[in-house]
């Protein structure tokens, strides 16, 4: 049977999104900036799409800026905020387990002279809140933290960032990379106290190539591209209407997150119980992780043969954010796992379409793989 467990990498587009994309390429294909009937229709579609995303984030439509996806959103937020705030200080506080689109961007800013602090994590990928409070000083201009870790599912204490900034009397903007959390748990920028938030379409069953950056009203960041009035000059260029319409349709099709979460948690608990019974399986995710993402190590079996073995049976999992020989996951390394666990991670990520039959197929696949694949010492 086909079983897809790589939803943290990308998700199957839902039919609502497919239809919206098609409509935007066949019926309503105008340029929203054009001042005629076709353009007006496209403008309406753009506005309603923006409203749909705003509704999901409980924010205002004018706080939503469409981007090409998570990586661009993260780059724009972090660089745009750092450059905007550069005269007020130079410290940026983040964590050591961010997605590479944050991590590498911070390295670039460090080269420009910013003082970047990446908070260490414990063996479950959690930061110590006390360390966050002591890292943030009055010189801090930006705090950026992911809401849910993409490799292990750890939920980060994002709401502590605003408190830390206030206590230090710092002008810091707070950015949150919510790509893995959006659509899977309640995500409300105002409740989390963040000024900037990145979300992406293809992680919620929408098309690839589109995402959104939330910018709280009144907050200013510097743009990275120039040449038009679109998206209030924050992200100029003709809007990718088919992708935006598909993103909005996928967002509208999201079920009640709280109810869905209970179902996913049940599936996760069932899977963890069965996997643990197999023996030599260590769960790398914390017990209170977002249940959509579970990272396990099958001791002695390297990730790549296990992935290939499962793939041969139609079961898709991943070894982390990118499967690469000799290159271990930086998140798991930061968590201080031993070599045997580092060699053998398997990331299992659910979606609302995941069924218990698929989970059973996965467990059976891993059990067989354990028997067939020769272990390494």
């Amino acid at each position: 049977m086909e079983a897809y467990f790589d939803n943290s990498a990308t998700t199957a587009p839902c039919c609502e999104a497919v239809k919206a994309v098609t409509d935007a390429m066949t019926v309503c294909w105008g340029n929203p900036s054009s001042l005629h009937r076709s353009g007006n229709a496209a403008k309406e579609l753009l506005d309603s799409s923006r409203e749909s995303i705003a509704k999901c984030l409980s924010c205002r439509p004018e706080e939503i800026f469409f981007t090409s996806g998570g990586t661009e959103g993260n780059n724009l937020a972090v660089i745009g905020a750092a450059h905007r705030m550069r005269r007020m200080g130079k410290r940026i506080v983040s964590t050591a387990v961010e997605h590479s689109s944050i991590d590498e961007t911070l390295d670039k800013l460090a080269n420009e002279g910013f003082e970047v602090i990446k908070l260490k994590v414990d063996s479950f990928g959690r930061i110590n809140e006390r360390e966050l409070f002591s890292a943030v000083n009055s010189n801090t201009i930006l705090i950026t933290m992911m809401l849910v870790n993409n490799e292990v599912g750890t939920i980060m204490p994002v709401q502590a960032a605003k408190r830390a900034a206030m206590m230090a009397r710092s002008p810091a903007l707070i950015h949150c990379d919510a790509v893995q959390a959006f659509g899977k748990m309640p995500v409300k920028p105002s409740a989390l106290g963040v000024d900037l938030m990145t979300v992406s379409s293809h992680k919620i069953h929408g098309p690839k190539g589109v995402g959104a950056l939330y910018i709280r009203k009144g907050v200013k960041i510097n743009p990275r591209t120039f040449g038009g009035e679109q998206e209030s000059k924050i992200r100029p260029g003709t809007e990718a209407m088919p992708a935006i319409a598909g993103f909005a349709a996928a967002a509208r099709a999201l079920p009640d997150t709280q109810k869905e979460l209970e179902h996913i948690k049940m599936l996760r608990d069932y899977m963890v119980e069965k996997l643990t019974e197999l023996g030599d399986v260590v769960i790398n995710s914390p017990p209170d992780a977002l249940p959509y993402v579970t990272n396990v190590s099958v001791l002695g079996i390297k990730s790549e043969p296990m992935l290939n073995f499962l793939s041969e049976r139609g079961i898709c999992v991943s070894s982390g954010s990118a499967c690469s020989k000799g290159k271990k996951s930086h998140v798991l390394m930061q968590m201080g796992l031993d070599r045997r666990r580092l060699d053998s991670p398997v990331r299992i990520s659910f979606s609302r379409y995941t069924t218990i039959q698929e989970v059973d197929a996965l467990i059976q696949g891993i059990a067989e793989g354990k028997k067939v694949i020769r272990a390494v010492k």
Partner: protein
Amino acid sequence: MKEVILIKNGELALKGLNRRTFEDMLVKNMRRRLESAGKFNFTIAQSTIVAEPVDDSADFDEAVSRIEKIFGIAGFSRAAAVEKDMETILRSAEEYLAPQLLGIRSFKVEAKRSDKKFPLTSPEICRETGGYLLRKFPHLIVDVHNPDLVVTVEIRDNHAYIHGTQIKGAGGMPTGSAGRAAVLISGGIDSPVAAYMMAKRGLELIAIHFASPPYTSERAEQKVHSLLKQVSKYSGRITLFVVPFTETQEQIKDNCPEDIFTVVMRRMMMRVSQIIAQREHAGALITGESVGQVASQTMPAIACTDAVCGMPVFRPLIGMDKDEVVAISRKIETFDISILPYEDCCTVFTPKHPKTRPTLDYVEKCEEALEVDRLVKEAVEGTRFIHINAY
């Protein structure tokens, strides 16, 4: 005026009575390689091959980039073929070479008159052409020792040819002129380079790849396809044989001491490869080994590997440093494919402390635990093949 490609064969000119055979082989290779770039006619005269497009549909730039990679060619030129009349020659030289002449300072003219009936002698042709070009392009000067451009006028039987400085060819011998050999290819940096080097000496290639799913992935095999596709730009079509190797590797892992895994594995590879090579009428094996690069490539390890080989094993990289190999792999554009990070058959069960000085006695004793004949037979029987061609 018609544009043609004049091809000078290299070492071939030194061959004696076989020369014709070599030239025919070269022309056959060129014809096959240029097939999808347009229709060309080939004529051989006085150790020069003229490739002439039959109609306008030929992609001339593509043809030139392909000819650059064909072995057995010392150098070649894009040339204008014109009527054998001095007036026409001068005007054509002006028109055809203008783009090149406008960008340089100095030039000289060389003439080759193989048609002795042509009224002007070679020095006269040079003088006439040089003088004419100087009048038409007053910014130029003549420099006979170190010119920016050598303008060549060749008077041959049917046409006069005008061209600029000759482009260096790939050198070597025409593919197939030295027979056929089988290259063992894993997906790393070395084996494509070894394949390229032996193809350069005129060997036609087949390739053998060992796949061990699930330890190696489909992507790893795709990577080998991409590598061979690039090599085939030089060597011509390659047939790839993919050998199922999982069971052999697992049996080695289960039954042999860890420190000898790699040597036993390579011996098994040689046994299988040899059978496939013989079946496909290949006379030698090619590997990318270099002395001392890894534990299985020490002299004693190579001796153990060679002990199972009944045919020559060519190791063109044997005395090369890694950076020299990398330089070639960059030149032939296989490097960026080679460094894609997929596990290959050679890294599946890499021992932590491999034996660097294995003795044949020890290796043979370790192999007693394996059903060598059955494993080899099944691997050969399970082999599938794919034709790989760049164009």
